[in-house]
């Protein structure tokens, strides 16, 4: 196992290096000069020249890259050009926010998607099935930003039930934190619920036709027991796989949702950094995300081997 891990890590190194080079290179292809943005409305030529020198913007890109990657290896991702805050600190501050949003959205998606899928499969072809499909399709088709603004106008402005936007850390005030995140989680979760519902429905349809379900019914078990204990349990296996894949999508979807609800998370950090040409922040975030993905891949490969030792023989 150790040898396997060591091999995978070694193979991953070139991938990470490639990611870092791509991030760095692509970013410099973006039109727009970060120093001009930094210099402010006055754009004092003297200030611009000093900043260029200070941030080594006139060095050739490979030289800039080596300096950056060298620092990154020692854990220094630089400081934000805009706020002078260390990039690593910014990432550490924002990541939990987005994770909370993604987790809450996932809960919303599972609570809506799986029951809806089960019911529509069980009542296939009836009006219940049609209704569930209609709702699922709308969930997929309604753009997040529209739903978000409509919810704000209805729930916050009209009804006054929930705060319109913002953020409260869970550790400071759990109740308020959940209140503030509720609407964004619903917006983000509904789209996902639709996908989950479709997957659950098709998995359930397959399982409900299986022999063991017929056997369970023949034994005289109650319908509730048959559907939940026997059918759903087996149908859930592919659904769980889909859910884990969708979690990645959730993080991406959070970018837009965070913009609408002004949640100071990872997505908002990236978008603002790109618009402000805050190179250090963009580079730091993409590098961290890349490394995290590579690490998760290695971890899941290792987990498969633990769960199913036969996979080791193939590898």
């Amino acid at each position, binding site marked *: 196992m150790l040898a396997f891990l060591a091999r995978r890590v070694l193979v991953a190194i070139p991938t990470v290096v490639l990611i870092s080079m791509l991030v760095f290179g692509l970013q410099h292809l973006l*039109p*727009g*000069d*970060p120093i*001009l*943005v*930094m*210099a*402010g*409305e*006055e*754009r*004092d*030529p*003297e*200030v611009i020249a*000093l*900043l260029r020198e*200070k941030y080594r913007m006139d060095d050739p890109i490979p030289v800039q890259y080596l300096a950056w990657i060298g620092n990154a290896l020692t854990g220094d991702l630089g400081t*934000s050009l*805009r*706020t*002078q*805050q260390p990039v690593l600190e*910014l990432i550490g*501050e*924002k990541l939990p926010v987005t994770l909370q949003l993604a987790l809450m959205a996932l809960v919303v998606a599972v609570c809506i998607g799986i029951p809806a899928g089960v019911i529509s499969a069980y009542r296939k072809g009836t009006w219940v099935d049609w209704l569930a499909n209609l709702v699922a399709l709308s969930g997929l088709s309604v753009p997040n930003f529209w739903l978000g*603004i409509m919810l*704000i*106008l209805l729930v*916050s*402005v009209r*009804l*006054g039930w929930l*705060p*319109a*936007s*913002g*953020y409260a850390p869970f550790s400071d005030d759990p109740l308020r934190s959940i209140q503030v995140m509720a609407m964004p989680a619903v917006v983000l979760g509904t789209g996902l619920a639709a996908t989950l519902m479709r997957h659950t429905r098709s998995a359930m349809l397959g399982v409900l036709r299986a022999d063991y379900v017929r056997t369970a019914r023949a034994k005289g078990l109650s319908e509730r027991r048959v559907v939940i204990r026997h059918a759903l349990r087996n149908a859930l296996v592919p659904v769980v796989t889909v859910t884990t894949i969708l979690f990645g999508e959730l993080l991406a979807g959070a970018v837009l949702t965070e*913009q*609408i*609800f*002004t949640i*100071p998370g990872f997505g*908002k*950090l990236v978008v*603002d950094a790109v*618009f*402000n*040409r805050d190179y250090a922040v963009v580079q730091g975030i993409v590098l961290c995300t890349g490394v995290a993905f590579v690490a998760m891949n290695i971890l899941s490969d290792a987990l498969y081997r633990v769960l199913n030792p036969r996979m080791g023989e193939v590898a």
Partner: protein
Amino acid sequence: MKRFLTLTTALGLGLAGWAGPAAAQDLRIALQSDADVLDPDQSRTFVGRIVYTSLCDKLVDITPDLEIIPQLATEWSWNEDGTVLTMQLREDASFHDGTPFNAEAVVRNIERSQNLDESRRKSEVASIENVEATGEYEVRFTLGAPDATLLAQFTDRAGMMISPDAADAAGVEFGLDPVCSGPFRFKERIAQDRIVLEKFDEYWNADAYHFDTVTFLPIPDTTVRFANLRSGDIDMLERLATADIPAAEADPEIEVQSATSLGYQGITFNVGNGDRANNPWGEDKRLRQALSLAIDRNALNQVVFDGSFVPGNQSFPPASPWYDADHPVAERDVEAARALLAEAGYPDGIDLEVQVPNTNVPLQVMQVIQAMAAEAGIRISITAKEFATMLSDQTAGDYTASQVGWSGRVDPDGNIHQFVTTEGGINDSGFSNATVDEALDAARTSNETETRKAEYDAARDVLIDESPLVYLYHDAWVTALDAAIEGYVAYPDGMIRLEGVTMSE
């Protein structure tokens, strides 16, 4: 619902009463974007200045009528030829870290603005050759040449005083934990979420400030910002979208206050910035005059801004004492515009590419102009660009015409000199004219209002004729606030001043 709210409020108040003194009063202000670094020497954003207004006192301040009044400096005088400025300082002020404010602190502040590598204030204090403490509370600035703009610079970031000891200790990272001398001190900041200030009890004028904390929340989306105010999640917001003004005014729980800004919006032409200036629009002023004549500025203001802004044709708004009344905003004249095009050799009309920031309002403005210009035979094509890209292209001269604006400065010099003088730092147009250079240079070195006005008028005659910039309108800073807030006054610099402002529960 109302009953539920009343019940919970009563319960909340009851609990607060039971637990101890009533809850501290917090004022929540929504900003259009997140401030950048909170160091007056390094800072460059407009919203950053709004935060400073409560955090950092300046040597002098302005009234809503742009009169310069004391703040940390109590009085000041110039020598005969306007090269020495002597200021008397307040003796009862101190910084948030307890260090006393005095002449020595002013000296160290000015030197930091001049010498810190990252300082964005260098050009604002460049005229100061020497600054010395001539007494514990008296400071003397010696200038290389007379500089009429200096006092106005001291009403903004260049005049903000930070604790020199804290600044020395923190260096370039001062902005992470700023220490100033304003009515509120820095408490915490969560990037992109909030900046919290708390009342500074030792402030020299502490009795005039009635909030225990002030929280600034960046909420970029105008709809969401306004929704937050209507739902009571914030108490005040800056830059209400003009489309929302009718709804805000109709709401009895919301009050709207506005003041015409010191800045302007216009179309800048490339008349001499690199090779791309070699085109009919850069070479022939008649075409630029024709475009100006083709635009109905009043209609533009009505259509896009519901009439809440001010149509303009100069760098100063018509109500400004610096406005040249000999050149009033011209009526639209399509025939005259067509005649000018024909005279310039384009009787069948001409194409024009204008670059515009890719956000709603500038695009709407340009679409209205596009329709108006078409009637005069000017076929405008709009190129929408993301702001950072547009800025680069404009600086590099890679454009024909560009729709840009300026947020405005207190002294008239800051709204004109750097844009149209040959060596001007933001002269993206590449415009160069000896008469304009001479007049604008002269205007910045005289302390006599009448002399300055005459120089600006002289420059204006040329600028109206040459039209390297076609001015369109002056924005208004529209603030929307909870009707429970009293004593708030909108200022033409767009800053939010909290002196004397109260909020009833």
